[in-house]
């Protein structure tokens, strides 16, 4: 007979999840369960669609509270009581209004990571603008955006184009076209390019590089929500295109021009929302590249709004 040790599990973080839309809440519960099965967590669900009379506890590490009408201070107090001592607290805010909702500011206090999703509610670029404004007013907030993290395979593909000798072409880029099913991802991708390459917005459809050369850009609604469909970057000599292959989770990479290149493929490895939240927790807090991209996207959007 073999005696096996009990597989003890200890929460390594407290996940606080706030939402006020029931259908989003159901989706969020499913994803959070997946995440918590990977990173042992105490999960505190704050369901603003439910009245305060609702509360549900599963085991020792899953707590749901109805918080409709609950004052911000009471929300924070509840989290302080329920959090696992000496472990980081992660706030997943799945609602609009981060700039105006006092509950958001109150819940952010003392939290190690805030995870936001500017494209979840499909508010055009409003949610992104709100994030830009909030971060400008609270530069120390340890926030990251799922919409930005979704770009990873596209950033990789764009970077691949310019590894090695083709890096020189970056100085000669004159046009960028992005097709995307939602605005935030598209502006993040453009903002990321601009921030890495020193481009600044000059008009509502153009940027300039540090030598004063004009770079036209175009963003089109195309493909599935929250998904990039394609990006084409053109220099005076070549066009570098990355495009989704709808039949498979693959991006096709092609280069036209004098240094033509055979089509290449790259797996998208769509990680799912749980994995993106995980990524946000692991590397989101001090991601300077994200903050640069966000600031650049904000400047581009500001030019468009003017």
């Amino acid at each position, binding site marked *: 007979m073999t005696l096996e040790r009990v597989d003890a599990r200890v929460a*390594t973080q407290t996940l606080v999840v706030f939402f006020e839309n029931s259908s989003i809440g159901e989706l969020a519960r499913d994803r959070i369960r997946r995440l918590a099965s990977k990173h042992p967590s105490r999960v505190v669900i704050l369901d603003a669609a439910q009245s305060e009379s609702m509360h549900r506890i599963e085991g020792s590490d899953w707590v749901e509270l109805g918080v409709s009408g609950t004052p911000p201070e009471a929300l924070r107090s509840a989290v302080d009581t329920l959090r696992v001592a000496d472990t980081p607290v992660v706030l997943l805010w799945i609602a609009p209004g981060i700039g105006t909702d006092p509950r958001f500011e109150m819940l952010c206090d003392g939290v190690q990571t805030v995870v936001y999703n500017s494209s979840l509610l499909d508010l055009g670029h409003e949610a992104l603008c709100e994030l830009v404004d909030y971060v400008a007013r609270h530069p120390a907030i340890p926030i990251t955006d799922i919409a930005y993290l979704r770009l990873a395979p596209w950033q990789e593909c764009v970077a*691949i184009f310019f590894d090695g000798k083709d*890096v020189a072409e970056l100085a000669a880029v004159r046009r960028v076209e992005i097709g995307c099913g939602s605005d935030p991802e598209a502006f993040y991708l453009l903002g990321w390019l601009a*921030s890495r390459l020193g481009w600044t917005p000059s008009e509502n459809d153009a940027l300039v590089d540090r030598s004063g050369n004009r770079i036209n850009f175009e963003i089109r609604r195309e493909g599935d929500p929250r998904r990039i469909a394609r990006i084409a970057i053109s220099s005076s000599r070549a066009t570098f295109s990355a495009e989704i*292959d709808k039949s498979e989770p*693959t991006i096709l990479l092609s280069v036209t021009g004098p240094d033509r290149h055979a089509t290449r*493929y790259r797996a998208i490895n769509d990680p799912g929302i749980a994995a993106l939240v995980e990524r946000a927790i692991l590397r989101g807090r001090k991601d300077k590249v994200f903050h640069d991209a966000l600031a650049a996207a904000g400047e581009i959007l500001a030019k468009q709004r003017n």
Partner: protein
Amino acid sequence: MPDEATATATVSGDGAAANPLREGLATERIANPCSVVFFGASGDLFKRMLLPAVYSMRLNGTLPTDFALIGFARTAYTDDAFREYCRKQLELFMPDGSKPQGAMWDDFARRISYITADFNNTSHFKDLKKRLEQNDRDFGTRGNHLFYLSTPPSVFPVIIKQLKAAGLEKDPQGWTRIVVEKPFGTDLASARTLQRAIEAVFPENEIYRIDHYLGKEPVQDIIALRFANTIFEPIWNRNYVQNVQITSAESLGVEERGGYYDSAGALRDMIQNHVINLLALVAMEPPISSNADDIRGEKYKVLSAIDPPAHTDVWSMSARGQYGPGAIDGRAVKGYRQEPDVAPDSNTETFAAAMLFVQNWRWAGVPFYLRSGKRLPRKVSEIAVTFKPIPHRFYGESTDQIEPNVLVIKIEPDEGISMRFEAKVPGPEEHVRSVYMDFNYGSGFGVQSPPAYERLIGDAILGDQTLFTRWDAVERAWEIVTPILEVWQNTKDFTFPNYAAGSQGPESARKLFPDWRHI
């Protein structure tokens, strides 16, 4: 908006302009485009480990997009037949969800080619050169070539000589690197001969001696445990440590490897490389950086502080064994001498243990006990650091045993860290008992460690030698085990087989050290 540093393409160490878009990406350390040539591509290691590792890298995006794979071996295949062979092996050895299919496989497959080769025929290596040049044109591999020697070691010098003869030791357009599988030699003399053959063609910074143990996540975590925490380092020395036990035990026998194993034995197969590498990581001083040569330099210093046992001390500082028939997991298993391709009067040890001392300020007087064996009760690899007993007990007449603290770094099959300490049993009486504080990678991070070969092949393509063994360390490890090897070889052990399969090992090991942890 960016500052100057992030916006400008800088020049990297190898003279190529750095890509400013790489900063902050998950694959910030992007591997260069390259062709990888697998010598011995029709063998077992390639199909079970290397090919799945490369395809998995392809799927998870860590392989460069501009990539090509060339198989080079004696078995006759056309390019298409070899692609089909690869597809079948991947069907067998890749997990569900990662089987070869669709555009990803088609793209991977068209980058695979094969050369049926006689390793003694220079013209076949010239064919390889042409194929590499063709890959540079077709797949943009830019003259970067990784040669992976997964053949029997006896062929290594021949391949290296032929690479030179065909002008493949260097490419004016890119880098050339060579990965050498273990064992690196069969003794000190043969290791030096092999090294001379390699260094006549490749400089040290192009040689990647692989020990797949070093690619395992918990092995890398030894460095993090020691140098990313403050609580361990102050007590990591002779003042607090009673002894260190390093165990690499297997429940398997020699399986299909009887022919090889009978000429090798446990000392060569495990102690000289895996186990001594673990010792170096546990005992080394803090490196000044995570740079490959800073870490490898510290590892070498530790090994150079170990005095090889004098021939006259071998019997008091080591123990050997050979398994006889017994039972594992409730099943009867045969003895070593009954295994296929093993001599019926074999003198080869299937169990080896040694006591070594690191003669430096930190470790003077602390014994390091190393053991490795086959057909032990279960598979376990671990490092156990046993701390000194308390200096004074104030529990009066209590009969409770107060055990020393033990920190166990678990490598296989569990991956994690366990700490044993004493705690008071609740109640009015003064009783203490041992309790354990466990960290497991599985529950702590909820992620599977990447397979060692995936990590190591990726590092070789990236040019990161941290997890590969430098020649000075390989040579020193051979110097340490050589006296034991010589005495054992020259002395027939008439007690063999001296431990039953499924037991804790031979009695001689218990005489060497009575307090081995139970396997």
